[in-house]
């Protein structure tokens, strides 16, 4: 991709209250995922691998950790001369502080940033989706179509379509209608919340939208309908592959389990599309004589003396003798003491599970966020 052909803007503002204590200290995109990663590693690595060099991260709530995490842009190779990851919180303006009032407003408030970068196109991404996607292919389709906007869509089962924003398209995949959670869906093309806009045009619409008093300043609710109303050329880009919104405890757990399920379609071993993350200084993990391990993913720095089954272990986890960890996700620094039994549990960072404690059930996922 040519320099500044496309700049990505990641909407990372969500407080993520449905992730409960996991977002007590970090914003949702910084939540741990997959034994080694944080959720935002996925869009950032996708950018790096797609040749997008400049990324803005729009944060709102308690962003100190997210800030310092993404600011180390060399983790994704995004520390090139002209590129970089820029944290963009709401700023003090002449009229006092403002906050981002909606997804579109977050971009509007950063028009000066984008104008400074002078991109041809802007890629809008969400900070809490797990997927691997080559945005350069989407851009190619966008340019080939000479489109004003291109929206990535996923084919979902028609019966589930009413949970999504649905794109109704013509035979060339030009979008003729957008329906938010339609009761009677006319198509199965669900919006993934991934947009490419030609920047000059988008800027016009953002500035117009900013003045509308009844607008929610949202891409799905305001900007896309405005484009459609003006008969702008919007196209759907059909994405095939794994995609998951991990915004709830259940879906976060499912996403982790998908990593150890060869049939899930989520392959993080593909050397041609690495997911980059923080580089941790722990030695390789050790499995002792007393351990038993199967169907699991284990990161460096762990010491496994107990039984691990269908689980994902982040770095620096210790599972002592006689302990058993099944269908669980153990975040960094977890200590599972001797004889403890975990079943379908997510254990928070640094939490200690005392000896012989039994936690979790076959049913709902249990979140353990403090020592027990």
């Amino acid at each position: 991709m040519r320099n500044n052909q496309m700049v990505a803007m990641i909407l990372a503002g969500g407080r993520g209250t449905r992730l409960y204590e996991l977002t007590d200290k970090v914003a949702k995109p910084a939540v741990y995922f997959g034994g080694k990663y944080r959720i935002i590693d996925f869009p950032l690595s996708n950018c790096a691998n797609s040749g997008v060099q400049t990324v803005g991260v729009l944060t709102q709530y308690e962003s100190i950790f997210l800030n310092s995490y993404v600011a180390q842009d060399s983790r994704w190779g995004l520390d090139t001369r002209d590129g970089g990851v820029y944290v963009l919180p709401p700023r003090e303006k002449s009229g006092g502080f403002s906050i981002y009032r909606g997804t579109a407003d977050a971009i509007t408030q950063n028009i000066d940033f984008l104008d400074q970068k002078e991109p041809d196109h802007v890629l809008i991404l969400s900070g809490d989706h797990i997927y691997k996607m080559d945005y350069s292919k989407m851009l190619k389709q966008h340019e080939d179509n000479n489109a004003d906007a291109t929206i990535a869509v996923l084919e979902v089962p028609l019966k589930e379509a009413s949970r999504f924003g649905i794109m109704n398209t013509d035979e060339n995949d030009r979008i003729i209608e957008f329906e938010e959670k339609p009761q009677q869906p006319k198509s199965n093309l669900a919006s993934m919340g991934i947009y490419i806009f030609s920047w000059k045009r988008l800027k016009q619409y953002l500035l117009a939208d900013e003045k509308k008093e009844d607008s929610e300043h949202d891409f799905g609710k305001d900007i896309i309908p405005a484009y459609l109303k003006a008969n702008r050329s919007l196209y759907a880009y059909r994405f095939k592959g794994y995609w998951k919104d991990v915004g709830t405890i259940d879906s976060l757990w499912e996403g982790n389990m998908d990593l150890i399920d060869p049939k899930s379609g989520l392959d993080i071993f593909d050397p041609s599309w690495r997911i980059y993350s923080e580089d941790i200084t722990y030695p390789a993990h050790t499995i002792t004589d007393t351990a038993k391990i199967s169907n699991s993913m284990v990161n460096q720095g762990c010491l496994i003396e107990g039984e691990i089954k269908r689980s994902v272990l982040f770095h620096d986890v210790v599972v002592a003798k006689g302990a058993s960890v099944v269908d669980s996700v153990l975040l960094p620094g977890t200590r599972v003491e001797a004889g403890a039994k975990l079943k379908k549990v997510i254990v928070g960072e640094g939490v200690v599970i005392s000896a012989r404690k039994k936690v979790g059930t076959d049913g709902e996922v249990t979140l353990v966020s403090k020592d027990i």
Partner: protein
Amino acid sequence: MSEILGIINFESNAVEVSGLSDYRGIPSLSFMGRYRIIDFVLSNMSNSAISNIHIHVRGNSRSISEHVGTGRHFNINSKRGSLHVFSNESEMKASAYHTDISSMSQNLEFLSDADEQYVLIAPSYFVYSFDYNDLLAEHLKSNADISMLYKSTDNANEVCIGCDTLSYEKDGCNPDLRRVVSIGVNRGKHKNRSISLECYLMRKSLLLELLKEAREISPFYWLKDIIREKVDELAINGVALRHPVRCINSLESYYTTHMNLIDQSKSKAFFREDWPIFTRTSDSPPTLYNSTARVKNSTISNGSMIMGTVENSIIGRNVVIEEGAVVRNSIILTRAHIASGIELDRAIVDKRAKVFNAKNICAAADDIIYIGRSETV
């Protein structure tokens, strides 16, 4: 800023890890799955706040140059600090001439230009975690010309064979000087020996003099030769290292060190929480174990897929152990692939090797089998 310029020296021809070192120098050797041997001395220097570092290597420098990069992942400020990798491939063939003295002398400009007052010279083949500022403190206290690290061992008949040994005496006038009175060689005849770690601290000006003098004596002289010769003339202070040390100077020591450090109670002295050992990340995902994996007493690196049996072994990054493969008492390096039906015992499988056909590769009790880099067997 540190007053010490770090020099990572290369090892003499006596140091050889048969097989493995045909493909790369000792500093580039894989260590405990995810590291390279040079990571220890380099992390020791970085953690000691030494930020100007000269790395002298034998042979091709590409892999070390790429590994250390600008130094930023070793926590070195790339503007203020600097990392130079010096190689002298052209003289490899006539290797007797390719000494550390000649390598440093050929790059004198970099040595002269450095602002630091002191130099610390250490090779990479001794593995330990240590703050070189402690050595500087001992050096200043002792008022010595040179301070050198040594390790007291009680199994010198088994390890560090061929390494320098030293004898010291208390200095009559200076209680802070443990004066080295002679430097010998460990022939493995005795259990108790003080092994030199070939780690020297001295003023830069003294090093420049020693380089000059050594070249005048013989083109075959190494730094340790000229220091041995100066033992009466200079006040050389022996400083004992209290932390554990491993010496990787042969295939056997490479193998036994690995087997030994699977035990976390032993390896933790090398991987201390307050003393990180840095390396270059490969951005590998965590290790994946499937339903047929059976693993005991092993150290396993990221990026690997374990579907077979692994016992008492070290598995490097991005290794595949297929279902039905059995790996025992072995070291499997990066990107090697062990196919179904294969049984390995006491084997070292080099990087990218593919073991597909040779059914049973089991060495006798005191032997080790080596499978070469990128070989398919």
